[in-house]
């Protein structure tokens, strides 16, 4: 369950970007297909730790990315989201990929806190 420590890291990373008088309402994560991060686990872990960091109102939005792959047999290009994917053109597997390990905080959304 490394997603727990990753959720903590995400919280710690976004807090410095929360300007005074503002709150973070959304955190957008980009997750590559080979990152080793399970989206559901990350969302669950975030819901547990967000409160500790004053982020209980923040929504975690995970975008699962696809990665460009090339077929070593026919040279065909595909967009894939898992290691077992076959070539769109000839059905060959495995495909050659460059990247897919992305796991980054794309952006955050912040909102002014209402004065009472």
């Amino acid at each position, binding site marked *: *369950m*490394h997603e*727990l*420590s*990753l959720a903590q*890291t*995400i919280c710690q*990373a*976004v807090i410095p*970007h929360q300007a005074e008088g*503002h709150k973070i*309402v959304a955190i957008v*994560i980009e997750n590559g297909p*080979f*990152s*080793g*991060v399970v989206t559901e686990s990350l969302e669950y872990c975030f819901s547990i730790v967000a409160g500790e960091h004053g982020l209980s109102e923040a929504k975690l939005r995970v975008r699962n990315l696809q990665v460009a792959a090339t077929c070593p047999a026919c040279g065909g290009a595909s967009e894939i989201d898992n*290691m*077992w994917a076959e070539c769109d053109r000839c059905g060959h*597997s*495995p495909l050659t990929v460059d990247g897919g*390990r992305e*796991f*980054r*905080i*794309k*952006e*955050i*959304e*912040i*909102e*002014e806190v*209402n*004065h*009472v």
Partner: protein
Amino acid sequence: MCDHCGCSTNHHHGSDDIPQKQRVQLEQDVLAHDKQHAESLRSKLRKSNSYMINVVGSPGCGKTALIAELIFRLKEKNIKTAVIEGDLATDNDAKRIAKTGAPVYQVTTGTACHLSAHDVEHAVEHLGASEETLIIVENVGNLVCPSMFDIGESLRLVCLSVTEGTDKPQKYPVSFREANLAIISKCDLLEYVDFDISESSQMMRQIHPDLDILQTSAKSGLGIEELAERIAGLCRKEP
């Protein structure tokens, strides 16, 4: 008093408006901090002519036994070895390794399912390993979590025992994708279990086409000399 404009009424400014959302682009790698620690450790080790191996695999796949056997073979090849043990709790593995005479430091992670580069940096300091040392890190027994954490190693070895089942590479692909060398361990038990070496190797190569795969048995000694020879070769080649 209103804290916005200083007037004496208690009115609210903008509270009836729809809150303005602002987007801040971060483009920040979540593991950036870990990666920095890993890079700095790797370069520090390189400068002292040391080399680090990260051993990952399920609990009970035979990592400790493999490391203990390797230490003996490496000693014969004049390779100085030190070990860092990672477990949630206990120093049982450190005690097993200590019997070989190699310096060992146990990291107990408490609840964490993997070692981080930061943990390992501290452990290296505790070990006091100086120049020209092969540092073998036995990661927390887990075929999932350690796979995405670079700890500053130059070689990652994934260990799969024949008692775990042929299809483990398919079930836990990231560990096999990120490794440089795969060990199929406990091969002395092959006649008692339904493990298909060629099928399992094929699954590994489907994920990682040029993955090096070696069959070992810490009990019978199968493959240990070959593995020690390869590791010794890598140590001599570095930096």
